[in-house]
């Protein structure tokens, strides 16, 4: 029988490392990524010779691995570990890295077993570095496969084939995230070491943010952000303070947390998390700083704070000024149609924003700021600013007739419509307004409905034959049930519902028929309603201050005598939002150090520790 000197030696060393609980070195031994050194090649050759694939040699190999952990009465004390090592050997023996998908599956199985070994309350921590190492290789592989869909097209076909409708596709990246999350949970729920918010992380708890960050990376990659929510709430409930962990883990975690909050429209906490990630990030880590800024900047823009030139000129801001500068200028400018055009699907900027996952947020959240700028400019040019002479007397407050805002909006719409360079129509030409619906939102013409404006098109008689040929079984079927539920035969070709021209002359089918199509006043009142709504929204959000009158529509700015109409009616956006948000600076998902003054006394008494009362007698019982 073939001897296995290298394998023997390898197993011997593993045994020692386990005994010494040297997790770092154990990971160093359990290499899987090529290029592997000569000694590993020799060991693989021994494995193939002595333990070729098959259940017999697996059993034999397993027996040898059992020796790695001390035996107890009930069997092995850490039974998951020998199985993991045996799987490691089979992996080394069988893997064919030419077949990436097969490699992925083998590696996932290996990592799964390693995570099971991590679960042991005494010994688990020894494999923590190995779990992290295997997770990283698996993540890299899954993300690589994700970018090359041709390599996994056949499994997608196979999996999707049977019951496509009920089947939600789980990508390799998401599957990997699920395995890594298991490891994260094992780290988070480790009971060893000192509990409570003051304790430094010990044992497996040291791995909480390493595993969380890797899992978050995968979840962001596969677009399953919702799955991160549970992670953040378990961290809030059970994790030691983030401050106890090394800077690299803190910055990475705050970056993902900030992005998560941003995509949930929680801009203020997102800004705190991202700003803190930026402040703590190593100044030479330009690519990381660049990514943090990619989200920190729009987060601030949404809240009315624009990046300064000093910030945009920093080396890590490379490429960001050309994206965010035009956006900020459009917000200041106040032309809502130019703003929409900038963020429409065809624009280059929109594609960049979409790739970063911030396009919809910018569209939805910044347009109101554009309208504020627009109203402000119309007020400057066409509003009543108050009578400076009549200061001492009680004159009317500054105001703006909304009719002027309406005219200015129409002017903007005409302006955009007459610019021939537009590939598409943004505004509406004069006299070409919708008779119904929104006056500020342009619906692209749907080819299905072309020609419907012309009634001649709808009931063209030469179409009748075609229509009957297609839908005759419905329009002129063999018979029908009458009102009493009795079957009535129908002569062939006879329209069951009657002739539209003859029998329905008196009826009006157009649901919008009451809005007379050519009446300019009517459309103006529709636009006026919209402008009133936009202003009401600005007022509710505190982005403008004053009140609206509906009859003889006006926006009035009372109490402007001291500070002037503009600062009173159009307060600073950031200061308004900040004043409102700063009341609650809590960032969900970020465990902070307990504040020394407020909770000091309670914490000294062991606050937060769970006292087990299961053995206590009920009051009054003996």
């Amino acid at each position, binding site marked *: 029988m073939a001897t296995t000197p290298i394998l023997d030696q390898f197993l011997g060393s593993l045994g020692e490392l386990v005994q010494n609980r040297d997790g770092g070195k154990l990971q160093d031994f359990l290499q899987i*990524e*090529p290029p592997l050194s000569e000694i590993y090649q020799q060991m693989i050759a021994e494995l193939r010779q002595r333990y070729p694939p098959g259940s017999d040699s697996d059993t034999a190999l397993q027996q040898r691995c059992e020796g790695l952990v001390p035996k107890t009465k009930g069997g092995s004390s850490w039974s998951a570990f020998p199985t993991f090592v045996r799987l490691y050997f089979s992996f080394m023996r069988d893997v064919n*890295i030419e077949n*990436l998908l097969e*490699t992925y599956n083998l590696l996932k199985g290996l990592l799964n077993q390693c995570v099971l070994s991590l679960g042991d309350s005494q010994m688990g921590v020894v494999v923590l570095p190995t779990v992290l190492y295997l997770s990283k*290789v698996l993540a*890299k*592989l899954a*993300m*690589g*496969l994700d970018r090359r869909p041709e390599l996994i097209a056949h499994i997608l076909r196979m999996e999707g084939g049977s019951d496509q409708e009920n089947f939600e596709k789980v990508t390799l990246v998401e599957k990997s995230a699920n395995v890594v999350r298991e490891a994260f949970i094992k780290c988070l729920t480790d009971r060893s070491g000192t509990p409570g918010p003051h304790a430094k992380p010990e044992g497996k708890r040291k791995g909480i943010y390493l595993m969380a960050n890797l899992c978050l*990376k995968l979840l962001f*990659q596969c677009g399953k952000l919702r799955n991160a929510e549970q992670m953040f709430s378990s961290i809030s409930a059970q994790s030691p303070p983030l401050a106890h962990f*090394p*800077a*690299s883990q803190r910055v*990475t975690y705050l*970056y*993902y947390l900030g992005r998560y909050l941003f995509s949930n429209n929680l801009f203020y906490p997102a800004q705190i998390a991202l700003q803190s990630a930026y*402040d*703590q*990030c*190593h*100044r*030479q*880590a330009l*690519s*990381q700083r660049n*990514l943090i800024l990619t989200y920190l900047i729009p987060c601030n823009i949404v809240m*009315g*704070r*624009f*990046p*300064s030139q*000093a*910030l945009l000129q*920093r080396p890590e801001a*490379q*490429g960001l000024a050309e994206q965010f500068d035009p956006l900020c200028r459009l917000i*200041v400018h*106040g*032309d809502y149609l130019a703003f929409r055009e900038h963020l429409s699907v065809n624009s280059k900027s929109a594609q960049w924003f979409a*790739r*970063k996952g911030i396009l919809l947020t910018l569209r939805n959240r910044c347009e109101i700021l554009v309208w504020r*700028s627009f109203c*402000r*400019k*119309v007020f*400057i*040019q*066409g509003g009543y600013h108050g009578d400076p002479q009549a200061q001492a007397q009680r004159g009317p407050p500054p105001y703006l007739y909304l009719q*002027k805002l309406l*005219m*200015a909006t129409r*002017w903007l719409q005409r302006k955009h419509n007459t610019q021939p360079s537009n590939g598409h129509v943004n505004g509406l030409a004069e006299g070409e307004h919708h008779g119904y619906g929104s006056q500020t939102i342009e619906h692209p013409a749907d080819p299905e409905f072309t020609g419907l404006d012309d009634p001649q098109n709808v009931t063209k008689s030469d179409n009748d034959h075609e229509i009957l040929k297609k839908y005759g079984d419905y329009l002129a079927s063999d018979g029908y049930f009458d009102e009493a539920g009795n079957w009535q035969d129908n002569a062939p070709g006879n329209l069951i519902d009657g002739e539209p021209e003859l029998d329905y002359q008196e009826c009006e089918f157009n649901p919008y028929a009451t809005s007379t199509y050519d009446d300019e006043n009517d459309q103006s009142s529709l636009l006026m309603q919209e402008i009133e709504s936009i202003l009401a929204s600005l007022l509710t959000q505190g982005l403008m201050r004053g009140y609206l009158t509906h009859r003889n529509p006006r926006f009035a700015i009372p109490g402007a005598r001291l500070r002037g109409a*503009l600062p009173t009616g*159009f307060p*600073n956006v*950031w*200061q308004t939002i900040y004043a409102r948000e700063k009341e609650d600076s809590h960032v969900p998902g970020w465990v902070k150090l307990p504040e020394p003054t407020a909770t000091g006394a309670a914490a000294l008494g062991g606050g937060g520790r769970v006292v087990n009362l299961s053995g206590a007698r009920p009051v009054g019982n003996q």
Partner: protein
Amino acid sequence: MSNSTTAQNKPESEQPQQQKPQVLEEDDEFEDFPVEDWPQEEAEQATGSASGTNEHLWEESWDDDDAAEDFSKQLKEELKKVEGSS
């Protein structure tokens, strides 16, 4: 495995000019830091620039009060026209 998943950076001589945009375009991934931990001093910006450490990063006041700017001038004309006609 590593070299097969990152096939694009294998041939080093190939398209050196394409590599630069790739770094910015493709790399949306938050990379691992080369070091585990660092003191806060190493995170702060070097104070080499003239403005010092406390340069302001955010503009809070950006409202446009320039009435001479094109858009405002056109707007003014337009509003005048309306006033004249009504």
